[in-house]
């Protein structure tokens, strides 16, 4: 065991391991309900599911403080929940209801929550890289020791903004972690067709330290993230973390027929052999942290939590029509 992994095992306590399992389950079950809502035509707009990628959001957010900042993407439900958002208010937002995080004005792709440091999900691919870097800039300016995490998909590696802000973040030693979630596909195109060269080398070219981690292993993500976040908080500057992962479903819930860009077999392999929740559950059992019956009970409990949240959201009223002109200006 290298000293690093030894430390990781030590910091990933039994309590944290169980909590991380619950958080991943909550994201998975949340999205089960999203899929259901969408299929029943109760949910307007688009929904991009995060299923398969849960270990990244949870591993990283568990290494953050509540006040630390995150920015998210169009595939943002997992980041919001992992950072502490409440399912009731999230479902209400997804249904365009007044009780939602943004009074129903943002929807699935724009959930924002100052109480949990969530600067907002973003429907522009790569659009939040400036915002996250700016939050890190103000942390340094105000000397409040907060760290900002910028989540983005590998498709955003094509956006020039990333390279502008990597350069500035490194020059100014800003406490920001750029987390690239490589789920292999930019919408309907394999990333190898869009991404030249080595991904991490793009960051190291700016002198930004870059690490790669198995995005299906919540403990590994957590321990890498913890090192990078603690280092950034201590003044060590930015970092880049490449998390290799996979999305189980289509680009969005309506993307059903996807044989033209990937095989059923590939999907099946990831789901059965690389599932972050299954893998972590096995670890919990192996370590003797819990037993199968407890895990099953937890699953039912979380599923009930999410069903209740959906009921809350369905029953909630829409915003008053006067809201349409509110919040254009502060």
């Amino acid at each position, binding site marked *: 065991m290298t000293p690093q992994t030894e430390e990781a095992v030590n910091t990933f306590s039994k309590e944290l391991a169980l909590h991380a399992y619950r958080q991943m389950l909550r994201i998975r079950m949340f999205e089960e309900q999203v899929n259901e809502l969408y299929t029943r035509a109760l949910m307007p707009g688009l929904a991009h599911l995060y299923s398969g990628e849960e270990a990244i959001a949870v591993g990283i957010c568990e290494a953050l403080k509540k006040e630390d900042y995150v920015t998210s993407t169009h595939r943002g439900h997992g980041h919001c929940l992992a950072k502490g958002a409440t399912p009731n208010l999230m479902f209400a937002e997804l249904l365009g209801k007044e009780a939602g995080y943004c009074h129903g004005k943002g929807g699935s792709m724009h959930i924002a929550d100052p109480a949990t440091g969530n600067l907002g999900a973003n429907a*522009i691919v790569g659009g939040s890289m400036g915002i996250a870097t700016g939050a890190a800039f103000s942390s340094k300016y105000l000397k409040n020791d907060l760290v900002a995490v910028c989540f983005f998909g590998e498709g955003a590696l094509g956006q020039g903004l990333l390279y502008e802000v990597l350069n500035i973040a490194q020059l100014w030693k800003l406490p920001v972690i750029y987390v690239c979630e490589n789920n292999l596909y930019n919408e309907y195109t394999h990333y190898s067709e869009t991404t030249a060269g080595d991904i991490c080398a793009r960051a190291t070219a700016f002198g930004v330290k870059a690490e790669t981690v198995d995005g299906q292993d919540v403990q590994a993500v957590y321990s890498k993230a913890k090192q990078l976040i603690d280092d950034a908080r201590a003044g060590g500057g930015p970092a880049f973390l490449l998390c290799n992962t996979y999305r189980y479903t289509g680009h969005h819930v309506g993307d059903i027929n996807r044989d033209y860009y990937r095989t059923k077999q590939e999907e099946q392999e990831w789901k059965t052999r690389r599932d972050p929740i299954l893998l972590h559950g096995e670890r919990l059992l192996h370590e003797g942290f819990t037993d199968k019956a407890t895990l099953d009970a937890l699953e039912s409990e979380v599923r009930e939590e999410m069903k209740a949240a959906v009921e809350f959201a369905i029953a909630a009223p829409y915003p008053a029509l006067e809201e349409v002109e509110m919040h254009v200006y502060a």
Partner: protein
Amino acid sequence: MPDTTDRELTFAQAVREALAEEMRHDSRVCILGEDVAEAGTPFKVLSGLVEEFGTNRVFDTPISEAGFTGIAVGAAMTGIRPVVDIMFGDFLTLTMDQMVNQAAKIHYMSGGKWKVPMVLRTTLGASRRSAAQHSQSLHAWLCHVPGLKVVIPSTPADAKGLLKTAIRDENPVIFFEDKMMHHKLKGPVPTGEYTIPLGVAEVKRIGKDISLIATSSMVQVALGAADMLAEIGISAEVVDPRTLWPLDEKTLIDSAKKTSRAIVIDEGYGRYGVTSELASVISEGAFYDLDGPVLRMGAMHVPIPFSPPLEDLTVPTEKMLFDAAKKLCSKS
């Protein structure tokens, strides 16, 4: 405004004074831009600020307009009040996602949860023989986007009072300065502390026969044309909206109702531009009091050329405005 004095400042000095006062007043105010610190910008508008406030308040950035504008958006959301300097208004194109899709939308999309109190200062205006990529007046683009405020002062005193208000505003504000005015235009600037609210137009010259509604550098053009018109017995009123959004519609409409004729003049492109909007506002608000159509004058619909005689053709002049006003007054 408090006690006016004999003190005269250039437009650039007034801008600098506003920034210095606001930076003294609020430690969260900082400046981000290319060559803003020791160089004080290529136009020397910010000279001296870094000496007073240091490089921890005045940040020289890489040449990364999208990057540092995006950083300002995030910084504004999290407790800073950044003032971004975009050297030439033409480079606004590079900041458009950050301003249009991010800064302008965040307050609304978050249901009022996040605010973006930032200012983006940039330039407009031709006439410097700078050719097509350094001469545009693109302010109309930003007026088109709900969530942004757009300020376009025409005098040093207005620039100072409006910039101070813009910095204190809780929203993203774009502040346009005509680069020909920075050092060439001088004017009285009150010594005491003052601010000017956004959304209040000012009548720069009172008249009764025709309203010349002018913005930025075109206010001086309108005042010059008004002098020429006075010589032939036409009394022109010059009104400056000062901010394009929020827009003081009432003052514009009232002036047109009073004089019964109006010409709108702005240095942006005439087609689909600021003049079109202002002319519509006046037509809708004062139609039954008007003695003729509201005319509009803007830049020619061409990329601004380099060659001096060609460039001079593209921007409205006192003579062009005088001729148009004379014709409008004689017809009706």
